[in-house]
């Protein structure tokens, strides 16, 4: 058994605080290809250097992004990163201090364009004295829908968000989750080409979250572009094609999620003990490796418990059989060889957390 084996392993820290972006070449390459690709398509949202400064506080420092038609775009960042302000600028609610923005080919807040946009605000609240159908009827009127269209669309939407039973109830009797559902319904009244959802699931229970996911998938199938503002990584991971990481009002990185799946494979290798022979056996393969559990002092304070788990990262699964063969050839006993994708949370921490350590 090798004692203190971890010191000889090529250490590649690619998750968690303290990691350096320089080690993450693969991800940056991916980032560049999709940006180029996205630029070729017809962008629904196109901004450059968009900026908002309130007196002394910089809410959005530099927002530069393109969202192509039909994409589900995730906008991720910690609280106070400027996500909501960015959305408000794209909707004409907030005037930018500088920069340039086009939404559906027009400047933000353009009246005819707003007719093709749906928006669920972060804190959707509405006149509590209204009934659910009245609320949707009002918003339908504001969208300029004629009475027949409203009569047809309102029951459809109430059914979609699961509020048919509550159609005649006043909003004052609604739970937070129900208010978020009716807010989602009002954002979809006009069959929008572009939908902004600002934290759409923050008040929802698991059923509600699943519903929002389903609705997003349906909208995507209809070709709707969706801009999803969220700090719930699970939601974003389950629904988005691409994500932008924003912090302190800046887009740190934009990543395609589906390419993450095919391009980056993380594998956990568990053996009876990580020996020098095993490490030597794997050394010439194009993989990054890291001992997870490490060699730690034993209970008696002296002896070391040997490492048993290695985390490997590689381009694809072609190498898996080779790894298995080499492991067995080194004399180690193989307990598990488990491929898994890096979660969005890990990537989030890497991108956003890295910056944090640099401040």
């Amino acid at each position, binding site marked *: 058994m090798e004692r203190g084996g971890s010191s000889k392993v090529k250490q590649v820290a690619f998750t968690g605080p303290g990691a350096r972006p320089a080690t993450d070449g693969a991800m940056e390459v991916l980032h560049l290809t999709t940006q180029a690709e996205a630029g070729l398509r017809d962008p629904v949202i196109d901004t450059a250097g968009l900026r908002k400064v309130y007196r002394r506080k910089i809410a959005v420092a530099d927002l530069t992004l393109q969202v192509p038609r039909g994409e589900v775009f995730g906008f991720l960042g910690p609280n106070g990163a400027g996500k909501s302000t960015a959305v408000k600028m794209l909707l004409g609610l907030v005037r930018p201090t500088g920069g340039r923005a086009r939404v559906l080919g027009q400047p933000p807040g353009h009246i005819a364009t707003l007719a093709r946009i749906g928006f669920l605000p972060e804190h959707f*609240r509405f006149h509590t004295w209204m009934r659910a159908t009245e609320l949707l009827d009002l918003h339908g009127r504001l969208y300029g829908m004629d009475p027949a269209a409203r009569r047809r669309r309102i029951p459809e939407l109430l059914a979609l968000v699961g509020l048919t039973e509550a159609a005649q109830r006043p909003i004052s009797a609604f739970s937070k989750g129900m208010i978020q559902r009716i807010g989602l319904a009002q954002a979809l009244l006009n069959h929008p080409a572009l939908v902004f959802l600002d934290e759409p699931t923050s008040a929802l229970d698991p059923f509600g979250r699943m519903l929002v996911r389903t609705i997003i998938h349906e909208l995507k199938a209809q070709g709707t572009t969706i801009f999803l503002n969220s700090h719930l990584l699970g939601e974003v991971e389950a629904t988005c094609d691409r994500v932008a990481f924003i912090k302190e009002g800046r887009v740190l990185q934009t990543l395609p999620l589906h390419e993450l799946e095919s391009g980056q494979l993380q594998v956990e290798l568990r053996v009876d003990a990580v020996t020098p022979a095993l490490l030597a056996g794997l050394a010439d393969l194009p993989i990054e490796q890291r001992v997870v559990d490490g060699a730690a002092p034993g209970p008696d304070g002296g002896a070391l418990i040997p490492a048993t788990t290695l985390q490997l990262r590689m381009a694809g699964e072609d190498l898996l059989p080779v790894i298995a063969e080499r492991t067995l050839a080194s004399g180690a006993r193989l307990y598990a060889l488990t491929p898994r994708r890096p979660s969005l949370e890990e990537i989030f921490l890497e991108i956003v957390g890295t910056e944090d350590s640099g401040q």
Partner: protein
Amino acid sequence: MSTILTIARLTFQEAWRRWMVVIAVLLGIVFLAFYAFGFSLINSDMGGSRLSPFLLLAAYNFFLLAGLYVVHFLTIMLSIFASIDAISGEIGSFTIQALVTKPVRRWEVLMGKWAGYAAMLILYLGALGAGVILITNALAHYMPPNPVESLALILLEALVLLSLSLLAGTRFSTLTNGVALLMFYGLTFVGTWVEQIGAVLQNAGGVPGAATMVRLGSVTSFLLPVEVLWRRAAFLLQPPLASRTNFVSPFAAFSVPDPAMVVYAVVYAAVALGLAIWSFSRRDL
């Protein structure tokens, strides 16, 4: 245009459904009942005495003015309290975000709210004002001159305050807006009394300082042309003979406001509304 109508309808419905108008109407009915009861008691007392027809007319006019003064007061209070929360409240509750991201212009939203409250005030003032005049007419067969013009002036008072309240609401919180408006109104209210008392003293034969009191009071009317409109309305409601008597009434007009003040008030309201639209269109929501 349809957006303005939609928002006006929403505003009117909200005032009704949130019980605000209902309560105001109930209080108005209580007041009208009180007025009718009181007037009939006093009228039967006066019938027993030997007042000259001339004095009797002046007495009827006094009670009618007192009644309409209450109507004027209730209407401007409704105007202030209904609208102080209209813009700032919806900004604070984020309700406004879902409204103005529809294909609507912000000025349409603001005009819609203004129109909704204006419609509410017209109905309220019309019902109460007509109530007082008709009760007086039914009990004493007395009809004041210029009833419609006078009620229109009271409506103008309410619209001046409404426009100012919407303007303040685009920048200040509801509480700040309410405090500021009431204090502002209070200032001109007292200013008007200073002017009135000054005028009485002047009529009584040139007490020193009386002219200054009148001038000071009229300055406050320029700051907020509301009470001054009431005095113009009260002047119009007085029969020509009554103003020649020495029948002193706190509700009547002693220094008669110039008709130009009415034009000034209309311009004042229009400018306040225009500034409200400008301010609302520019602010971040």
